């Protein structure tokens, strides 16, 4: 084939226009835009199909009506700390927390009304990792030290965590804590069945995956004498969590962010 320079430039010009046209049609096609928006809003079809196809989708329901009647109670927190070898540094700056308490108005910031139900005034609410359906911490983790299992639990692999703390910056709930110091000397009673962590890793609640895999319920659920916490499988329509959600009004923390948190509070 014989192409002179003139012909070559013509072909080059036309192919550039052709390529650009393809890209332009992509930008203006409606589908793509919708897909992008819905993905950022966390309600993308991909997420929904993933969670429906999964056999299990673990979630927790916290009945605040029962919980706030016992304001000073720390049974769930104590049980969690014991089970997971959580250190007590004796100060807030380096605190490691898997479950902790927040004032009601700080917990549900987007539910705040000027005139709020009085029964929640100055009341503390237990909060933990929401094990979100669309977890921002997982998206930012550069080493896949944190990832989402098919059953929805957002797991931590402490072997792999490099301590960059991107996940802590990404989490809108402050559910992750960083080990600024070696935690081992600050653990009062070491539980030999669970590892401790080392300096420089991030940790958080994982819905007691080690207990769940043995068929037990999470330590906090077991410790709650008010039975204010219920843990179960959302994909089983007969499960207790589904029944509770069917019969009661529930709210979640910051649902507008699109993370799809999986801790439901009955109010």
């Amino acid at each position, binding site marked *: 084939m014989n192409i002179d320079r003139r012909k070559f430039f013509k072909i080059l010009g036309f192919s550039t226009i052709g390529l650009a046209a393809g890209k332009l049609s992509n930008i203006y096609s409606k589908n793509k835009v919708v897909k992008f928006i819905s993905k950022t809003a966390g309600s993308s079809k991909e997420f929904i199909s993933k969670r429906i196809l999964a056999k299990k989708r673990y979630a927790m329901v916290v009945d605040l009506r029962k919980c706030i009647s016992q304001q000073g109670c720390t049974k769930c927190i104590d049980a969690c700390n014991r089970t997971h070898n959580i250190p007590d540094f004796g100060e807030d700056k380096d605190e490691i927390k898997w479950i902790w308490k927040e004032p009601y108005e700080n917990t549900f910031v987007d539910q705040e009304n000027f005139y709020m139900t009085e029964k929640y005034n100055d009341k503390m609410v237990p909060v933990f990792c929401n094990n979100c359906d669309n977890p921002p911490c997982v998206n930012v983790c550069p080493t896949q030290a944190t*990832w989402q*299992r098919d059953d929805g639990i957002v*797991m931590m*692999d*402490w*072997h792999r965590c490099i301590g960059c703390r991107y996940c802590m910056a990404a989490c809108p709930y402050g559910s992750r804590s960083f080990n600024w110091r*070696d935690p*081992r000397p600050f653990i009062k009673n*070491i539980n*030999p069945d669970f*590892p*401790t*962590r*080392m300096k420089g890793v991030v940790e958080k609640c994982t819905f007691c995956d080690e207990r769940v*895999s043995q068929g037990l319920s999470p330590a906090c659920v077991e410790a709650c004498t008010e039975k204010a916490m219920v843990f179960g499988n959302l994909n089983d329509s007969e499960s207790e969590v589904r029944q509770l959600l069917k019969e009661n009004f529930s709210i979640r923390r910051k649902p507008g962010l699109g993370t799809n948190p999986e801790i439901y509070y009955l109010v």
Partner: protein
Amino acid sequence: MYDSGKIIVGLIIFVGLFTSPFWYDANSKAGEKPDLVLPAKENQKACVESAAFMRSSHMVLLNDWRNEFVRENVTTYTSSNGKTYDMSLTNTCMNCHSNSSQFCDRCHTYMDVSPYCWDCHIEPNNPESSK
């Protein structure tokens, strides 16, 4: 050759210095083979795999175990002879090799490697020795 005297003397000194570690150690014995305390026979007759495999590849096996256990949610290991074991350093391995300082550490010290298992995991029979 110019300056042959200086060069030859220099070469002899260089070779002597270069090989000095060998002269220094010429009469000393080789490092002693680590003496491992093996678990009592009544506990368990054999390890999860053959001794030769464990000697060469226990670190690969343990790495696979941890990845499968933590990341894939697989909890049991089927060995090459068909037996199944729980994938657990602290429960399965340490159940027989109950003292890390008499088993793990001896070779690790000899080889000058320092795995960091016990930075986080807790040695079941010896919680204080950890870390």
